[in-house]
């Protein structure tokens, strides 16, 4: 017997690549490129975050920790060693994120549910405090400015396409993961963690692996963000950053692979357009979130998916 294999997700990813690739051609202003870059970076961050929450059922309120580690690895190396250390800084950020995620992960995956969430928050805030107080090394509240990537990457078009390729390849890797045996195993861990040991498989080990993978791609997003904004600041480590990525995932739909990406795009665009008209943009985000959670709890992509299934069943019952 042969299964029907759907290439819908791959097609969506290609469409995404094409759509973002033409942005600089249609709108060459640095403003539009900046907006698109933010969507890409936060989209990757949100998709990586959702591997933990939507897929495996581990709600982390501290992924800002890794977003910040990625950003600060780039920022600190460029500040203390020189501009040419941009790419080595990215690599260092990834290594630091892996090591940190293993150490923190071994401590916090022992607990589950709300205790896990609180511990992730605590570790995130700890990192923020250290960064905030250690003024002469991290720049404290001032952050680090003038982070211009070296050579060709200093060109904003080149950097935009660099970001696009890194983000699309990363999301493709995460998509492969979600469709692999490990991805299904992670969903099983969320749905029925008591049964997993009776497949001869360890729940904790699976949770640690996805925690490290999610943190790795969160750090990658953070290090890309450093080059997009040419500056970093302690807010990247603050709990509001962790909260924002949760909002994005809820808005887009945590049950769908691309939901968080769509959510990231929606929130960034709302912030941008509403923010230009009124300083109360966060009120609008709040209202949108309230409507979503109360009326459309599956998120934009999840509800669209449900609508499609419903239409199909209506057509089937009419036709049948």
């Amino acid at each position, binding site marked *: *017997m042969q*299964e029907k*294999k759907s290439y819908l997700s791959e097609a969506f990813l290609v469409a995404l690549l094409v759509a973002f690739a033409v942005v600089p051609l249609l709108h060459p202003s640095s403003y539009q490129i900046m907006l698109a870059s933010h969507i890409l970076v936060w989209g990757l961050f949100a998709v990586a975050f959702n591997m933990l929450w939507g897929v495996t059922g581990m709600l982390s309120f501290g992924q800002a920790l890794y977003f910040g580690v990625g950003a600060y690895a780039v920022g600190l190396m460029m500040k203390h060693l020189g501009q040419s250390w941009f790419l080595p800084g990215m690599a260092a950020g990834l290594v630091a994120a892996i090591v940190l995620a293993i150490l923190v992960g071994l401590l916090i995956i022992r607990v589950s549910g709300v205790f896990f969430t609180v511990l992730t928050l605590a570790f995130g805030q700890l990192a923020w405090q250290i960064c905030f107080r250690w003024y002469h090394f991290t720049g404290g509240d001032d952050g680090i400015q003038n982070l211009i990537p070296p050579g060709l990457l200093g060109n904003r078009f080149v950097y935009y396409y660099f970001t696009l390729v890194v983000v699309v390849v990363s999301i493709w*890797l995460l998509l*492969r*993961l979600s*469709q*692999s*045996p*490990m*991805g*299904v*195993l992670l*969903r*099983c861990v969320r*749905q*029925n963690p*008591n*049964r*997993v*040991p*009776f*497949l*001869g*498989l*360890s729940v904790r080990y*699976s949770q640690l*692996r996805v925690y490290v*993978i999610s943190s790795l791609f969160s750090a990658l997003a953070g290090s890309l963000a450093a080059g997009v904004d040419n500056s970093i600041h302690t807010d990247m480590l603050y709990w509001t950053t962790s909260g924002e990525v949760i909002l994005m995932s809820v808005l887009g739909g945590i049950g769908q692979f691309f939901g968080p990406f769509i959510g990231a795009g929606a929130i960034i665009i709302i912030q941008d357009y509403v923010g230009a008209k009124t300083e109360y943009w966060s009120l609008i985000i709040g209202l949108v979130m309230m409507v979503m959670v109360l009326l459309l709890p599956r998120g934009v992509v999840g509800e669209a998916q449900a609508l499609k299934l419903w239409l199909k069943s209506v057509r089937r019952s009419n036709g049948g």
Partner: protein
Amino acid sequence: MEPVLELKNLNKAFGGLRVTNDVSFTVMPGDITAIIGPNGAGKTTLFNQITGHLVPDAGSVFFRGEDVTGMAPQAIVAKGMGRAFQVTSIFPEETVLENVRMACLARRNEARRPFRNISTFKQATDDAYAILESIGLAQHAQRAAYELAHGDQKLLDIGIALGLQPSLLLLDEPTSGMSPDERQLTRDLIVRLWKEFNLTMVFIEHDMDTVFGIAQIVRVLHLGHLLAEGTPDEIRNNPEVITAYLGEEVQ
């Protein structure tokens, strides 16, 4: 022949309550053993000690000649012990196929592969379809598991355990919550699976038609200790068992 399972003087107490009281028995390859006893006799607790969910206070569990006492459930299961549950335990949002395929992948040590699409694991997929054919769920392969009827979900639970190609299969009340017709079908199915997969089985059951219909050896637990063991006929006529448990039911 080496026994598949050997319990030696197993003891377990919760506070002052002795739920497992010096239980010893041996299961040989190919046996179908039923464990019966009134509610609270310690049947599920015994299963939990065999599969590593609970650590016995004293005594040991040997699985295929190896002392597995105190090992984690996943380690024991990985050695070839499958278990289906009294309260159905499946992965509700996954398809019926995916539920069984996950077990087949686990047996082939492929369940943690992070890159290749799951549907390209041909061996595990074929194994899973073969099991779905055997348990009669092949036509539901692409449906979400939560959509199945209760009886079918119980079968799927057994199917997941079969995916591990277990040397020992533990079934906790395989026919609970079923109608008499479903029970008959499940009994036939269990016997057929037993032949087809060369299984060794231990099952807990309250339904006496199932117990006396398919078990070769019946062991009676009462207040945590082994009250009697023997062939179905011996047990049926054992006066102690009749007083303690069977009562009027069989007479």
